[in-house]
Each structure stands twice: as C-alpha cells, then as structure tokens.
C-alpha cells in the first residue's frame, strides 16, 4: 500500500518510540515497525524497555513498557538518543517518556486513556493535554485511538475488551502512515500469527491497522510526513537478532565447527536467562542444557562437561559472577576450556537488575584470588554477540582456558539486522585431544601457544588427575617454589599469547591525531556514531576504537595511543577500562562515565569530545 497524499520530508534517519502500559502491546508493535523498516531496507537498531516488575498494576508509572526503533538511510548503530516521534498510549507513558522527546518532536497520544483515574495513577495533577505549552513545544496529535479502533470494529463479534486490545495496531498503522511504510509485512505477520487459530482476531487487527493508516490518508490531522529512503546495505541474507539470541547461536555454531558437544548450564538471572532459554530450544542440534541449583553448580556442571570432552558454557550476570569466581580459579589452574558469559546489569549488589551497566570489567579481569589470568572478550553489538561467542570458543579450545565474555543488558535485549554468515566463512576451531598410545604429560605445553593438551576420560591409557593444587609438568602435585613461580608465569604467558591470534583492531578515523576515543563492548554504537558524526563535520583529528578483547589487550593498541595527544575513555562505569589503559600505557587517559542504568547518548559523547578537544 502506498500513499500519495501529503508530501514527504526527506530525512536521513528517525527515531520512533512506542510507550504504553505493559498490557498495551508496545513490544509487539515496536517489533513490527522495525521488521517493516528492514524490508525497505533501512538500517535499524532497537531498544525494548520493560518495567522492572513482572506485572505492575495497570496504568501506573511502574507499569510502563516501551520500545524504541531507530531507522536510517545510512548505517544506524544505536537505537537513537531521543525519539523524533513518541506514541504515548496512556498518561503514565507520557509522564515517563515525554522528557526524552526531541524538540518539536511528534507526539501521538491516545487521548481516550486520559481519564481522571489514569491521570492520578500517573501522578498528574491536571490533564497535560490541556496545557497549551505542550502544543507549543511539540507537534501534538491527540487521537481517540481506543474509540477509533472500536469504531473500526463495529461489525466484529469480538468482545469490547478484545476490540480495545487492537488499539496498538491502530497506533502502528497511523505511525506507518507518518513514515510512509508499507503495511504488507505487518498484515502477513498478523495472518501468520492468528490467521489459523483466531481468524476473528487476525481480521480485527488488520482492520484496525488499516484504519490507523487511513486516518492519516483521509484527514488533515498532520501536516508532516517523513521519508527515510533506502539505505546502502551490504548484500546478503539478513535476519533480526538480539544479543542473547546471537550468543546462543554463536555457541551452537562453535560447537558444530569444533566437533565438541555443547553443554550449557545456567541459573536464571536477569538479563542472562534468555541465553539458557534459547539454547533449551535447540535440543535437536545436540545441545544439552542444565538448569542448575545455583550459579556455582552451573559453572561446575559446565566445567565437568569440558573435563569429559565436551565444551561447557555458563551465563549469568554480576551477582552470579561473584558466585562463579572460585570455580573460575579452578578452571584456570586445571587449564580446561570453559566459557563464562556475564551479561552485565546495574550494580552493586542487586542494584538496578533490569538496567544496563558496564561495571563488571575489573571483576572479570581480577575478581578471583591468586594470580588467575582469564581472557576477556566483549561483543560490541547485538549481532556481534554471535562472533564474540564463536571467538570465545576458539580461544577456550585453542588455549585450553576459561574465557569470560562480557556482554550487557543493553545489547543482550537490543536487536539489529544481522548479515547471516555462511558456514564456510567461519574458521575451523577444532582442537585435537592427546593421542592414545603417546606418553601423556598433562601440563606439557605447545611451545608457541603455551597451551597444554587435553586427554579425556574414556581415552585408553591417558588416565590422569587434575585438581586445584599446583601441579608440575607431569601433573603431580608440587609444592616446589620454583615450579609454582614457573607455572604462574606460564599461565600468564599463555593468556598474553592469545593476542597474536585475535582479530585486528577496527579503527574509525586516522591513525594519528589529536584525540583517541577508546571504548569497549556495548558502547560501540554510541561512540562510533558520535565520532563518525564529528568526522562528517570535519573533525578528522578524532579517531575511535572499540576493544573487543580486554585481556589480552590488542598488541597494536600501545602504538595507536602514542599517535594521539589525548585519550578519552567513555564507559558505563566509573572508569574501569581507563584505569587499565593508564596503568598499561602510562597515558593520562580521561574518563567519561555514566552510571544511570542507561546507554550513552551520541550527543553526550560528542559534547564531551568537544570539551576534551578544547581543554
């Protein structure tokens, strides 16, 4: 369906946020909007924002649920700083989200829900829609969405309650009209989902979707429509993928390519649970999942599976990382392959469990007793989680080591289009076991990688004992002082040696200049967008780099840093990577910190960069 009425304003990108009560179906329409946008194709990035409570009472501020989508004609790396358009389905949604709306942004309100009760629950003293200031600041469209949806269904036999439930699709339809998006993908979705089982529901939703669209077509309700034209997207087969889904797929792919059977053991915790949940659905791929009694048991099960010749993986968030730390030490000294995923959230303690943060970096690096170096990999976007998980498995197997993968709630729940890799494009990561018949020294090492070779129960003649006490090369317990020193050195040297095998740094900008902006993990999108944006404005003396490998550090980083006058490290913590960079490179790296349970805004970073440049 295309439209010929009102002319379109051409824009490079736009950000739309759908907000309403948890029961209003905001996640569904947000997903639809982004799925439709990728078919344009636009480049997109999304950010769902659930309430912390399972089910807060209807209409309350605590119960507001939102979904933001950023879509552009050029590569889009974040879900966007501030919405250009906000759909607010009730007063609570308005209360929570209005402040974020861009200046002169489009505000679409379901005025049917602005009842006295709802206003009270949203803690409004008077109806904000009556405030003339609102209409001065924004382009306000208050529509009786509920009423119009019901009206569109006057011939339907659905109950009033069910009719009212379609109102999210009305809002979606109208928003499609504003941005000139096609309705077909959504109609197909509705038919797929309800067509067979609940044809009346399918019909109703389609009707209401169209009614929303036609409201735009047929009335003069809005003056502006926006056009975000086709993006130059690399050719390939794409899907949308969230960070945690991508982790699950990366693990299965890695297990397939390495020939190891995957045993994943986890204990539910927000925002890591969905990795276990996703993997539990891949039984036919030979994936074994164990929901353990706690995080300690979960890593123990994973380590046991690795000892037995599979590849053990566990995932958790901060509190669980604390509990797993003793076992990480055991994995470190026994030199067994293992992957530990930390999907970071706001801390300390239970903190802000549903919000994002990057404050577990130092814990990942140092959160164990003794000298127990463990490689750390940090994916930098939802789809990058696939490659990071695969890479973590490569390192774990090639070096016989536990590996920590540091994701965060933001990229775990966020999703973006993913150019699906072919099987052949992924490197072989299989690693041979010790050979039956050969003499076996458990701690004999490869002279280059310093990795030992694994022998597993069931292999004839290679019986040996591993354990947490220090061992000599033969695998015998050793209290010998110089052996301990040497083993400590070798364990560290092995982790350092990984750097050679890691992918090269991707540097955005010139290799020398005034300011190097160093980030890690999930802030990549915001930092890259900020620096790319400044490049477009002519600041070619700024360069950005995202570290996907935090331990060992990329070998070329030292040289890169030397090429710049200043270094800025934006992080969603109080300066953890900055601390390491300062120590390692003795450079006066400045920190940019944010600990608010939310990602960086692109503009925030740009402001800070300009400030640092001036200093």
């Amino acid at each position: 369906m295309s439209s010929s009425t009102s002319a379109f304003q051409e824009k490079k990108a736009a950000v739309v946020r759908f907000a309403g009560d948890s029961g209003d179906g905001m996640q569904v329409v947000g997903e639809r909007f982004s799925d439709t946008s990728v078919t344009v194709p636009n480049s997109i990035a999304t950010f769902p924002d659930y309430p912390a409570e399972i089910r807060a009472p209807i209409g309350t501020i605590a119960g507001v649920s939102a979904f933001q989508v950023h879509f552009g004609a050029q590569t889009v790396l974040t879900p966007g700083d501030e919405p250009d358009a906000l759909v607010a389905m009730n007063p609570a949604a308005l209360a929570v989200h209005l402040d974020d709306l861009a200046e002169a942004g489009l505000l679409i309100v379901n005025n049917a829900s602005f009842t006295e009760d709802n206003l009270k629950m949203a803690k409004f003293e008077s109806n904000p829609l009556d405030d003339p200031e609102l209409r001065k600041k924004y382009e306000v469209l208050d529509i009786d969405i509920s009423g119009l949806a019901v009206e569109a269904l006057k011939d339907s036999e659905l109950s009033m309650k069910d009719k009212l439930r379609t109102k999210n699709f009305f809002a979606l339809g109208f928003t499609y009209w504003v941005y000139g998006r096609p309705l077909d993908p959504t109609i197909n979705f509705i038919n797929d989902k309800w067509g067979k089982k609940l044809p009346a529901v399918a019909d109703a939703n389609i009707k209401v979707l169209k009614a929303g669209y036609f409201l735009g077509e047929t009335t003069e309700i809005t003056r502006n429509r926006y056009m975000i034209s086709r993006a130059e997207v690399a050719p390939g087969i794409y899907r949308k993928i969230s960070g945690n889904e991508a982790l699950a797929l990366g693990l299965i792919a890695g297990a397939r390519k390495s020939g190891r059977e995957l045993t994943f053991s986890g204990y539910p915790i927000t925002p890591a649970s969905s990795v276990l949940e996703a993997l539990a659905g891949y039984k036919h791929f030979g994936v074994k999942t164990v929901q353990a009694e706690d995080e300690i048991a979960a890593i123990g099960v994973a380590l046991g599976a690795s000892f037995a010749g599979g590849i053990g993986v566990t995932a958790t968030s901060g509190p669980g990382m604390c509990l797993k730390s003793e076992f990480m030490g055991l994995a470190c000294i026994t030199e067994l392959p293992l992957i530990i995923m930390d999907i970071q959230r706001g801390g300390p303690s239970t903190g802000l469990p549903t919000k994002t943060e990057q404050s577990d970096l130092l814990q990942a690096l140092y959160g164990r007793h003794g000298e127990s170096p463990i490689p750390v990999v940090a994916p930098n976007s939802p789809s990058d989680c696939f490659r990071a998980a695969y890479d973590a498995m490569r390192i774990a197997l090639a070096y016989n080591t536990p590996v920590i993968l540091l994701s965060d709630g933001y990229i775990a729940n966020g999703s973006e289009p993913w150019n699906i890799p072919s099987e052949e494009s992924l490197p072989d990561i299989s690693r041979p076991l010790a050979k039956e018949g050969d003499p076996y020294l458990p701690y004999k090492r490869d002279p280059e990688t310093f990795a030992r070779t694994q022998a597993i129960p069931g292999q004839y003649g290679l019986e040996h004992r591993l354990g947490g006490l220090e061992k000599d090369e033969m695998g015998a317990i050793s209290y010998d002082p110089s052996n301990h020193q040497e083993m400590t050195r070798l364990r560290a040297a092995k982790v350092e040696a990984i750097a050679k095998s890691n992918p090269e740094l991707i540097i955005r900008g010139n290799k020398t200049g005034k300011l190097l902006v160093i980030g890690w993990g999930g802030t990549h999108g915001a930092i890259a967008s900020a620096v790319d944006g400044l490049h477009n404005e002519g600041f070619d003396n700024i360069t950005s780099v995202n570290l996907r490998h935090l331990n060992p550090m990329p070998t070329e980083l030292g040289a890169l840093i030397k090429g710049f006058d200043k270094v800025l490290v934006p992080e969603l913590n109080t300066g953890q990577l900055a601390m390491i960079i300062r120590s390692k490179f003795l450079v006066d790296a400045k920190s940019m910190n944010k600990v608010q349970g939310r990602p960086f805004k692109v503009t925030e970073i740009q402001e800070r960069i300009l400030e640092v440049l001036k200093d």
Partner: protein
Amino acid sequence: MSVQPAAPPEELQRKDFITPNDVRWCPGCGDYAILNSLQRTLPDLGIAREDYCIISGIGCSSRFPYYMQTYGFHTIHGRAPSVATGVKVANPDLSVWIITGDGDGLSIGGNHTLHLLRRNLDVNVLLFNNRIYGLTKGQYSPTSPEGTRTKTTPSGSIDHPVNPLLFALGAEATFIARTVDNNPKHMVETFKAAHAHKGVSFVEIFQNCVIFNDGAFDDVYSKTTREEQLLKLEAGKPLTWGKDNEKGIRLNGLHPEIVNVAEIDSSELVVHDPNQESPIQAQMLANLTYPDFPTPIGVFRQIERPVYEEQVADQIKAAQEAKGTGTWQELLHGKSTWTVEG
C-alpha cells in the same frame, strides 16, 4: 607419566588401580581401608579402567582421586556433585564416583548433594563421615554430636548434627546405604551394590580419623561392640542382630521397638525390604540411632526412577527424531529473513 597398558576389564586387578604417588594420609587413617576396598571393587565391575572417573571436593578424604590410577578430578570444596553432573551429562558411559567428606558433602556442599540426589544421576557418592574436619585440623563438622569439643567449640558444639541418611531420604535419593571402614568385606559388597544400582547411590561410610576424632565410632563398631550395636540389613531378612541374632525389631504402630526374638512370633519382626516404593521403612531405619537402637548398616533403600543424564539424552533423541539434527541454515536463519541483493 607414560602410557601403561591396562588389562582388559575382565582381567583388571587391584594393582591396576594403584598410582605411583605416595599416599599422604596419616598412618592409621580409615581412608586407607576405604581406598583399598574401592581398589578391590573396581576391577570386578567389568568396566575398562579408562572409563572410571573419580571426582572429589576438598578434605582429607577428597585427596582420594590422586591415589586411584583412573581419571580423576580433585575439584573445590563442596562442589564435586556439580562437576560430576557435568561429566555424566556430557558422557553417560563413564562410571563416576564422587568422594566427599562430612564437611565437604554436608556443610559447604549440602545443597549440591541434595540436588544431585533428587535429580538421580547415575553416579555413586561415597561420603566419608569422620564427624570432623580433618584437613583443616580438627574443627567440628555438621555430623559431630552435640557437645563435641574442638578448637572452634571449646565449650562444646551446640548444633544438632545432620543424620546423613535422613538427609538423603529428605532428598528422596533412590539408593541409600551405610558401611564402615573397619569391614572391608561389607564395604566391597556395598560398593558393588551401589554400582549395580541404576541411579544415584548414596553411601555413608563411618570413617575413623585417628588424629582429630579417634574412636568416634567405637561405641558401635569396635570389635567388642559391633555385635550388640550393628544391625546388618539384608533384603528379605527380618531385622535381627546380636551374637546369635537374638534381638529383633517389631513395630508398635509406626514405632520400632526392640524385642527378644525368642519371646515373640518371628512373623512379628519387621522384614527388610529396601525395594519398596514408599520411603517409610527406610525412614524408620534411618531414625535408629545409638544408644537407644542398634545402628543399621547395609542398603536401606533401592528403588527405580528415571536417570537424569539418560533423560537429557532421550529428550535430545526425541527432538532429533521429530525435527532432524538441524542444519546450518535452520540454525542461523531463524523464523524470518530478508535478502538484500548485491
């Protein structure tokens, strides 16, 4: 450490299970006898040596794997059950033996033991109960009787001790037994029964710590006391003991009472039936404690229930039968894709 040709399973001998490492327990420690008994048991089970895997936590007892010429893993304190679970899930063909102590398995590791038991993995748990922390030099343990004076309880301990078998029954374990470190024959029998059981086997072993708790079990199992104090459980046999089996147990309502066998009709005696589905008889037996009652040894309970790692494998098989073993495309493409042409 070079490859030693091991005999085929049917010809394995005790010596095949002895490592060259020095055994480092205190002279006289009960652990030696247990080690010996297990080294005598394993060759007879028809399993290749490389298919045994001994997994322990931390404690004197947990040094065990180092002394067995099999695969072994000396893990961390209290966590052997979780490592064993991973091993068994990854490779159900291995014969897995968990070695733990009263501190390792019931203090720090109590929760993992609980969940291992209820999940019914097909592994064997040997809990060396010396009622003391040996390795850390003599603090009281969760099985130390009230009033035990140790370094950390100079005025006597005040915690009511855990009864390991009652605990295991609380976890609804499918195989529960008790044996004693001064009876190698009984140990070997019990270990064989544990191995034969398909599902988790929980075996409490009274083990004497000569250094920090010497004689803890003398009241019930020394040469002079054992006939009067130990009740050997045998399936299908009445509960009797004593020099001439002159004492027996009959029920008064739900309550056991000691009777003189000669004075009653033998049909009144409780007959041991470890295979009954209901745990009640095993509970009754586990409640029997010194000095009011004799101390039962042998198999308290053995029932059938699906085995965890087999069910894991079965669910995978079922999924594969229903959906095939999964293709690369199915894996990565998910529910919907779109194509951007070059």
